[in-house]
């Protein structure tokens, strides 16, 4: 229910112009359409070919495009990232998949010291148009090394763009933009979202990188949330509405570049802010969001302190009970929002 709300807000098209698909299908559709359109686009990554990817996202692409353009790699994350860079520097548009975002830790030198900086170091005379896709997040029982949310690392790096879609329509439109973008883009898909369904426009469309979207309008509280926290916040908002609290939900969708204006406009309107993300709170990107609000003139509109609700200060545990407790759930959002609006804390 919340998902379909978000879809409808997301892409303003008349009902008949959309098709229902999952988030995973939307990612796949973006890849396929861009590969059909542009011969310089190709995919590389571990087990993305006949296996179809660890989360089945690339299933069927190998069959359509062949092993040259849907290229299985050895288990060599540095080489995957580096190969994407070398190809991007010389005229191709690689889309590399890292099997879990956790393993992007292995690509940090290539991604941060090479891809992100090459253009600047070369005096603006080169271009590294690549996309590094990876699934992030907890909730699958895969424990500490397969469940992280490290978007804050990437958002701290000039030269990168960082995208975290929350809906199928956003996933497709943003991924197409990412592929067409002339910069290195980190595209982070939440594992739990892969099965979420939503309406996706049938026509060709793109969603610009760096544009937030109001996923739900409201007057009492602004929730700033991204990725899996968007549907959770939407679900909490429905319950809060029954308590007479109208929540506005703003999804930045892209953390870098960051659409500050849409967020400040919402804060000015509601006077209350709750920032929600799955990543560990300490040092998370929520700090950046809070700091921007606290430094802006929207600060003067605030009726309560800026609140964050985010991951506990721990690696993600295996036990399902602990795993759920380690990151914000719908109930936690509901409770935090209620307290903030009712008690101002």
């Amino acid at each position, binding site marked *: 229910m919340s998902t379909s709300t978000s879809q409808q807000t997301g892409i303003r098209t008349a009902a008949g112009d959309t098709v229902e698909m999952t988030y995973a299908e939307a990612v796949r559709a973006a890849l396929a359409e861009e590969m059909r359109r542009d011969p310089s686009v190709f995919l590389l990554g571990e*087990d993305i070919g006949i296996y179809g990817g660890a989360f089945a996202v690339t299933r069927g692409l190998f069959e359509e495009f062949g092993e040259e353009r849907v290229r299985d790699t050895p*288990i060599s994350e540095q080489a995957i990232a580096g190969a994407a860079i070398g190809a991007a520097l010389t005229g191709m548009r690689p889309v590399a998949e890292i099997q879990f975002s956790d393993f992007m830790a292995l690509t940090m030198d290539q991604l941060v010291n090479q891809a992100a900086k090459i253009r600047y170091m070369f005096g603006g005379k080169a271009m590294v148009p690549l996309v590094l896709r990876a699934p992030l997040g907890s909730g699958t029982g895969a424990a*500490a090394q397969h469940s992280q949310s490290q978007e804050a690392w990437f958002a701290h790096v000039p030269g990168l763009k960082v995208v975290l879609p929350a809906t199928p329509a956003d996933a497709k439109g943003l991924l197409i933009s990412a592929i067409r973008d002339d910069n290195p883009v980190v595209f982070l898909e939440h594992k739990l979202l892969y099965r979420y369904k939503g309406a996706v426009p049938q026509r060709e469309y793109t969603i610009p990188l760096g544009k937030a979207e109001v996923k739900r309008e409201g007057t009492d509280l602004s929730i700033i949330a991204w990725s899996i926290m968007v549907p959770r916040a939407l679900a909490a908002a429905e319950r809060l509405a029954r308590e007479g609290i109208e929540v506005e939900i703003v999804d930045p969708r892209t953390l870098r570049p960051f659409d500050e204006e849409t967020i400040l406009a919402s804060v000015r309107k509601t006077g209350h802010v709750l920032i929600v993300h799955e990543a560990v709170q300490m040092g998370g990107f929520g700090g950046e969001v809070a700091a921007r609000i606290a430094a802006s003139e929207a600060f003067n509109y605030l009726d309560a302190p800026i609140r964050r609700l985010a991951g506990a200060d721990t*690696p993600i545990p*295996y036990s*399902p009970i602990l795993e759920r*407790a380690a990151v914000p759930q719908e109930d936690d959002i509901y409770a935090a929002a209620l307290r903030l609006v009712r008690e101002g804390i």
Partner: protein
Amino acid sequence: MTLPTPSSPQEQNADAESAASLSRHASLGDLGEDFHPDELRQILGTMLRIRAFEEKVDELFMQGAVHGTTHLSIGEEAVPAGALSALRPDDYITSTHRGHGHCIAKGANLDLMMAELLGRETGYCRGRGGSMHIADVDTGNLGANGVVGGGIPIATGVGLSIILRHTEQVCLCFFGDGASNEGTFHEAINMASIWNLPVIFLCENNQYGMSMSVQRATHVHSLADRAGAYGIPGFSLDGNNVFAVRQAVREAAERARAGHGPTLIEAITYRYKGHSKSDQNRYRTRDEIADWKQHDPIEQLSRYLEKRGLLTSEQIEQERMQAYADIEDAYAYAQASPEPKVEALLEGVYA
């Protein structure tokens, strides 16, 4: 019915002596004689317990009774069973995502393993780690690892610690064929080589790194060829022949304890089950799987023991029953164990 002659272990870069001592054992009769019958029975028991454990875990996953994912080592039991039978209890291991067999062969308590898989407070990791992180540092099991190749540099560090502490331990480092393409493999083995560290790098070549075959992922005839890049001895052997594994690891351990540095061993084996629960086996044929089952390590050992009159078929059956019974006990223990408490979420992040 004898154990088929193992594909004669290929020595790649060793000095002539070790090579010779290894090929001496190409005929199985000789290999068997190194063993006391009790020890053989114990090795068989280890292999059976690994298989029984994995089968139970498979069943639990199929039922959706266990959370997360798992990587089963059915078909690969001879590697850990043979390798650990050649080491001392105070030696170390580092393990992988496919690590249940390593744990069991290292002597882990099945109750605590099963409790960990069920995410219970009584598990090895208090339910915080799960299948991919079972460890028992006190007994030298330095843990499974969810990062392919992630444990290899750690093993090098353990070797370094051993020489700095002047103990005569060794560290046995398990990793897969897929992991041998990670940068960590290269850096860590080179470092162990230049410092002559007592580490045994044991590659479980089960033919695939998830879906990519070792033939597609590398251009070498044998992964043991890579030893040449570090100037260390490299051996390739039949990983379904528990004697061959044991022998190679024993010799590598002797070299390591004598200060002659690390060895790279490739144990050729096969996983029967999918890579993990999501695997549809689209990258290999049923025939290939069926062929490998003809060389099942447990079957081979059982037949050999029976043929040689070392164990009767009743005794073997008894071992098997015992293994499955142990696993059921472990499962009962795990099920009766408490779940972790939410209030303890942050415990154990910091010392």
